[in-house]
């Protein structure tokens, strides 16, 4: 029962328009194939690396890396947790799935970084860019992540790549936002100091703004990584392999046991990634 008022206005063919737009995009197959190949090769490189490293060595490397990034303030609990957690994943026979998920997260975070940080800088420097980007970022983050899967499949086929693309779109906004915020929060007097000594714009960016924005920038990177990890189950619906697939299948079979154990593996991976990126955030001093 539509009201009279609504009845008099024809329905806006929004869905139809978007369909047309996606169809129109599909004609640029060459372009999207190139992107698919590019993202695919980054993904494959990570996967190749994780496949040739023996599992025991991988565990040792993760622990050594954690030890190194926390060298001034050691966290023994975390080291023990990593050791036991990774052993558990190995024991449950989720190792390959875990590395696939890790690959997906690393690839999408890397792309989110490479695109997000320059966008954040642009946003901090240009008022116009901020006005344009802000609503787009809000849109990217609030649109249910499932929706990205549909055009992603149309443009990039099925498999890892569309999963990565959807993750990038969903996970990039915090990096952009936090970079923007970090640079805008650099105290005026430091900007004036940089200018008064005759810095060029690039010198100001690399010697003053980015180093001082580093903490908030890295917090953005950390958030992006966690968000892309939250996409792994969703991405598995379009064929991105990994722990997400195990969870997705377990849901289909009403298999609580396998669902939870794969979920637990995701949690372990999330904690390790989170703690590692957080310790990179801390500022380190020479003495």
């Amino acid at each position, binding site marked *: 029962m539509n009201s009279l008022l609504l009845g008099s206005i024809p329905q806006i063919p929004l869905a139809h328009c978007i369909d047309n737009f996606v169809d129109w995009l599909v004609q640029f197959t060459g372009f999207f194939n190139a992107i698919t190949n590019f993202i695919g090769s980054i993904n494959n490189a990570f996967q190749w690396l994780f496949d040739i490293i023996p599992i025991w060595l991988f565990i040792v490397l993760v622990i050594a890396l954690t030890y190194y990034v926390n060298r001034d303030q050691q966290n023994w609990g975390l080291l023990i947790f990593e050791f036991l957690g990774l052993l558990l994943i190995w024991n449950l026979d989720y190792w390959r799935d875990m590395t696939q998920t890790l690959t997906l997260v690393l690839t999408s975070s890397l792309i989110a970084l490479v695109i997000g940080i320059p966008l954040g800088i642009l946003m901090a420097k240009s008022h116009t860019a901020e006005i344009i980007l802000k609503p787009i970022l809000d849109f990217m983050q609030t649109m249910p992540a499932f929706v990205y899967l549909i055009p992603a499949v149309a443009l990039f086929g099925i498999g890892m790549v569309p999963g990565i693309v959807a993750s990038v779109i969903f996970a990039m906004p915090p990096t952009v936002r936090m970079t923007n915020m970090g640079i805008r929060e650099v105290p005026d*007097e*430091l900007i*004036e*100091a940089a200018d008064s*000594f*005759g*810095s060029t714009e690039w010198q100001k960016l690399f010697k003053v703004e980015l180093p*001082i924005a580093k903490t908030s920038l890295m917090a953005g990177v950390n958030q992006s990584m966690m968000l892309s990890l939250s996409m792994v189950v969703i991405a598995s619906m379009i064929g991105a392999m990994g722990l997400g697939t195990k969870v997705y299948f377990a849901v289909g079979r009403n298999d609580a046991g396998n669902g939870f154990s794969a979920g637990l593996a995701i949690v372990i991976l999330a904690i390790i990634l989170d703690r590692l990126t957080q310790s990179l955030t801390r500022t380190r001093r020479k*003495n």
Partner: protein
Amino acid sequence: MFISIPRMGDLMSTNKSTKVEVKNLTKIFGKHINKAKELSRQGKDKSEILKETGATLGVDRANFKIYNGEIFVIMGLSGSGKSTLVRMINRLIDPTDGEILIDGENLMKMDKKELREVRRKKMSMVFQSFGLLPNRTILENAEYGLEIQGVDKDTREKKAKEALETVGITGYNDEYPDQLSGGMQQRVGLARALANDPEILLMDEAFSALDPLNRTDMQDQLLDIQERLHKTIIFISHDLNEALKIGDRIMIMKDARVIQTGTPEDILTHPADEYVEEFIENVDRSKVLTAGNVMIRPMTVNIEKAGPRLTLKMMKANEVSTAYIVNAERKLLGVVDANDVIKLVREKKGDITPIIQTKVPTTEEDTPISDLMDDISQTGIPFAVINDKKQLKGIIVRGAVLGALAGNEVSDFE
């Protein structure tokens, strides 16, 4: 034969080449700039213009010359436009109107690259809250100006170290700014500015954030450095005492306009209007001078570290007959007299506690000198200035009070 020894002022008058010339310099913030300009020409003041147009008059048609090698103090209360003015001299703020000539070259006609060269080679700035980069060490901070010019690592390190030595900061090269006290940080700020070997130093309220003792020290040090380096210094201040002390010439601003420019002597003897007069009256010493303004550094002995021998040695080195005894937290315990200490040393005793005289007159930093006058003239021991935690901040000796009351800073220029 009569030989006259030339004084600083005379030397300057014979060698008065213009370093910086400012013509009709104007800055209006906000919209309706032309309307605001028109109103200011009609003689409306800052608040009227703000009310009618919404535009804020930052600086209104300032005209002045700054001579080579002088300390030119721009003075005014907050909102008078002095900070805007100094930022227009290196174009951190772009003027709405007017000209800035440095060595005859018009800064307003320069493109970005030329302006950058001037900022790199000709002038450096020192900031009120220091503006040091928190992620860089002291040495790296001092190197900044040279680093961005592409000077190689060895040369810039050498120059930065020299500059740090000039301001009296050695041994802190690898510390970070937040590990240093305010006074030390500002010395680093000054060193960073000096490392470029600029001809002009712009100092924006450079000592305002420091506590009184440090401020006095820094003023003395600036005069000392100026004696050696002969820079042209443009110094922004809201403190007339400071302006009178360090300025060769002073320019007083009020509500975006220049009220008077002249030597400290001129300003004290021929104030241009009531505003300046009122300003000067406010320096009427005993009223504004507080204990904090006139206190000097005492010779202190930490009782937890020193026995009679060390105490005596320190007293000899400092040429004092009274030493102030404090504990490790700088809490004042009392004073000792040199004669008593000598006696202890002769008797080969190891503890100075028995000879400490605990009856010391004390006061606080913000007590006006006028309240202390009577007591000071009666007691023999200098007043100890302490804070609410009973920590010793400084002492007041009779000579310093009388000097300040007699207007010592002023008489220096007479």
